[in-house]
């Protein structure tokens, strides 16, 4: 895709950080509010779509997006493996008092971000994976097919 006009580029630059922040908000609050890793990741990936539309597809580097995707997946499985002391995917952080480890309050309250153990961490892993994967898809679609096959 070719780059668009200066006006579009400037507006895209203004919107870009707020979209990323909103995506990150959805990812991190996944265990408290509607949203989560996939939804937030999709929102954040729409920032990449905006950038591709404004600046063209040449600027984006597939290698980094692919690495981001892999990192998210490896992080997710690693969190599962860390629970192997009890069982795969055991929530070893919940209610321990450490990171994301506070007890959930009873009754009506606003919700405490610092609860739920590994679930927010897994949301973050999924979020990274989805940003990488959706971004990669959009870059590939925008760039068109590449030569493959025999060396």
């Amino acid at each position, binding site marked *: 895709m070719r780059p668009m006009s200066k006006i579009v580029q400037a507006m895209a630059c203004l919107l870009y950080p707020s979209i990323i922040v909103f995506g990150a908000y959805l990812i991190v609050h996944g265990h408290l509010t509607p949203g989560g890793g996939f939804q937030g990741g999709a929102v954040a990936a729409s920032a990449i779509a905006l950038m591709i539309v404004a600046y063209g597809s040449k600027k984006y580097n597939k290698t980094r997006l692919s690495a981001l995707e*892999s990192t998210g997946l*490896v992080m997710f499985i690693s969190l*599962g493996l860390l629970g192997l002391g009890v*069982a*795969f*995917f*055991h929530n070893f952080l919940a209610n321990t008092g450490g990171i994301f480890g506070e007890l959930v309050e009873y009754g009506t309250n606003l919700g405490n971000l610092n609860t739920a153990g590994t679930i927010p961490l897994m949301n973050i892993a999924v979020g990274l994976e989805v940003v990488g994967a959706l971004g990669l898809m959009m870059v590939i679609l925008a760039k068109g097919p590449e030569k*493959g*096959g025999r060396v």
Partner: protein
Amino acid sequence: MSFLDTHGAILTIIVPLFAAFLMPLLGKLSQKAPRFLAAGALALSSALAIRLAIQVWDSGTIVYTLGSATGTIFRIQLIVDGMGIFMALIMAIVSLAVAIYSWSNIDRYTGQEKYYALLLLVTVGSYGMVLTGDMFNLFVFFEISSISLCGLVAFRSQRGESFEAAFKYMLYSTISGVMILFAIGIFYGQYGLLHMVGISNAMAVNGSTMLDKIALGLLATVFAMKAGSVPMHMTTPDAYGEAPAGITALFVAASQAGLYALFRTGFTIYSSGMNMTTLGWVLIVLGVLSMFIGVTMALVQSDIKRLMAYHAISQTGYMLLGVGVGMAVMADPVLMAQYGVDAMRGGIFHIINHAMYKGLLFLTAGAIIHRMGTSDLNEMHGLGRNMKWTAIMFILGALAIAGLPPTNGFSSKFIIYESVYQFNPILAVIAMLVSILTLASFVKVFYSAFLGPRPSKPVKEAPASMLLGMGIFSAVIVILSLFPGFIIEKIVDPAVSALVPGVELTPLSSGFFPSTIITGDGFWSVLVFIGAFVSIMIIASLIRSMGNKGFTKRKGMGQPYYFGNRVTASARVSGGNVYWGFLKAMERYYKPVKAEHTGDANDYVAWLLITMAVILAVVVFL
């Protein structure tokens, strides 16, 4: 309990999954790293699967609950019993052999890290399908396996045909995935459960409802499609033919995970609440159709991999037939003891035999294509002169698939013939006829690829890693051939008793040597056969030694003559024309059957949906 005793089941699945996710990162660092990571991860998970198998045979079913130390049927569970571990063992052998084989086979291609990542994911999908204990995870792993296979079919992306085959396969697997999800929705809506044993117990209380039967019809069709049964087989030859050779061998094992899911649905979930005779007959009919149409279509192929793909369909028919007979007589303990158990043993033993020899045959075909650059049988000749090891291993695989003694294919087919004959003689006769036609078409492949004058350009033996991959399969085939009785007792019987709990398993092998199988009417012993074979060979060489001593090969007799004229290389009957007489005689059969294989994705989907409608009608109303 040690760490591996407790977590062996999940680690078998997780190790290749973790390696698959690491693969894109590692592929950036080095071109050669992916192949070692894939082979290492698969070797590790194969070792874990074998360890798990020994544990299951020793101490019975293993239940592993994810996320918690205590298990209820509302949690996600892996349930590893005799049948699941039987299939996992097949996957363990096949995935390792394929990973090693792929080193040389895809050496010339770009995107190797993607290839190996998808290969690992197919393995994950198949392990997951056979080890999981709940329906929803079965669906998830089914999708993982289907989508990764779809990507692998399209791997040789310089060919347009690969994309076409991948598209057709994707249509089939997407439709079937949605149907599984629909069936799971039916279960969840009625019982609020996804756990197989939980659903089965719930059905045992009230009997299965109309909705359950609809779900059964959908699941049976979809899993039979995954296994590649006629008339839902249309995409199989395309996908098998276009995938890289190693992947085709993996494809066979992954399809058998569909077969496993079919048996699991029928035996474990539904047999508690309804009479399984109808579904048994559905399997028998699908099996007979697959056997016959598969083998007759294979006879007319001239592409080596498409030919073998049709044979894969045909061999699946034997498994459906054997296990279908077991399912049909399941309700009657007398008939079950008389021949039902033996039919199931034969059918299940055939699964591992088929995965091994068909895997081997596809790998030899890949080696030929790798060296020749073509898969057309009409353009090949005389490869046996330079590719000796490939030729020997091809003969081993061809003998096994044709069911000739003393191979493993004979052992399982022998049991199927003997037991199915008591159920219905016509079915056994068809099974034998199909076996003969199978031999005929592999004679054709052997004749056209390995015999005849030397190829015009020099051809080298297959690379070492490809030979090693084929060697693993050959070694397993030899072991299965020499000790069939032992294998049935140790590996197949636990699988049968996992599918039909509480069934009485009278030993099939006799006391005097583990490699002798005794059915009601006859016996099969490898030792007796080899003894007879050796003594006949001695007699034949005695007769030969009485002949004219002056004869040497180089004098005159080496040149073939035909109607008084020297036969040149170009005048040789090419592979496609070997059975022209048979094909001419069968023209009235071939004309409509060939016309149905249109190559049009719409027609293929129509066949899938028509079959689904018929099976639904049969299962629901009969």
